[in-house]
């Protein structure tokens, strides 16, 4: 089955379906529907759709389209796993014409780590002076 397509067109991405999937898969980290709707407007999206236009996988980037991007809310729906869709998404991120001058691409996720290491991500070295305000429950 090679009928999947990656799109960044927000008009083709079912926002509510994305949000419901986030609630199911990342319940403790998922924002409320209202907060997600606000975030959606100010993000760059990568959605994998089936030939019928149904959502199969998703990732969201917060970026200045020039120097920095943060990848979050990454998932592949269970029925579409094993078809390398997360790889397809990351390839689309790297190929996106507006993201070619990005100097720093970050991601936080323990679970999907083996995959992201294959995509060129490395763990932030422990001595790296990164500071953050983190509110995982919000």
């Amino acid at each position, binding site marked *: 089955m090679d009928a999947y397509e990656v799109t960044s067109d927000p008009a083709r991405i079912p926002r509510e379906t994305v949000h419901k999937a986030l609630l199911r898969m990342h319940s403790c980290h998922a924002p409320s529907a209202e907060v997600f709707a606000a975030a959606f407007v100010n993000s760059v999206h990568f959605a994998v759709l089936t030939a019928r236009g149904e959502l199969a996988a998703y990732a969201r980037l917060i970026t200045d*389209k*020039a120097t920095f991007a943060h990848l979050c809310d990454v998932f592949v729906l269970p029925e579409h796993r094993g078809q390398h869709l997360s790889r397809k998404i990351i390839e689309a991120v790297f190929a996106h014409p507006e993201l070619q001058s990005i100097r720093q691409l970050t991601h936080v996720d323990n679970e999907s780590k083996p995959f992201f290491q294959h995509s060129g991500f490395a763990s932030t070295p422990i001595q790296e002076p990164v500071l953050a305000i983190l509110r995982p429950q919000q």
Partner: protein
Amino acid sequence: MTTAYEISTDPARLDRTAIHAALTRMYWCEGIPRETLDKAIDHSLPFGVYTAAGAQVGFARVVTDRATFAYLCDVYVLESHRGNGLSKRLIEAITAHPDLQGLRRFSLVTRDAHTLYEQFGFSPIANPRGHMEILRPALYKRPL
């Protein structure tokens, strides 16, 4: 003690030539092309620090979706204006901004300003192994 400085988020007030001149010397974005910086500013929430006469003496910008995530970067105060509490005022204005409330994550990277940021609730990442990045530190440096 001078109070004649002003902090503004109005993009129209930014002196982009001055900002580029300052930032292109900084260790974290040495040699950044003007057009890359312009595009970055266009897609960020910018904060400018100005003298009463309107001269740009400090800057910071936040990359954010204004709902769940923010990344603070390109923070500077010109050396000739340091010692006036401006960096503290700047971070105060940023953390108080209405679009940057209730975020899931607010992060930054600093080499030596931990004390400044810790006053505003930032702390070193508890679990660095869960943080991943692709970093191209020399991307903007021109070949010799």
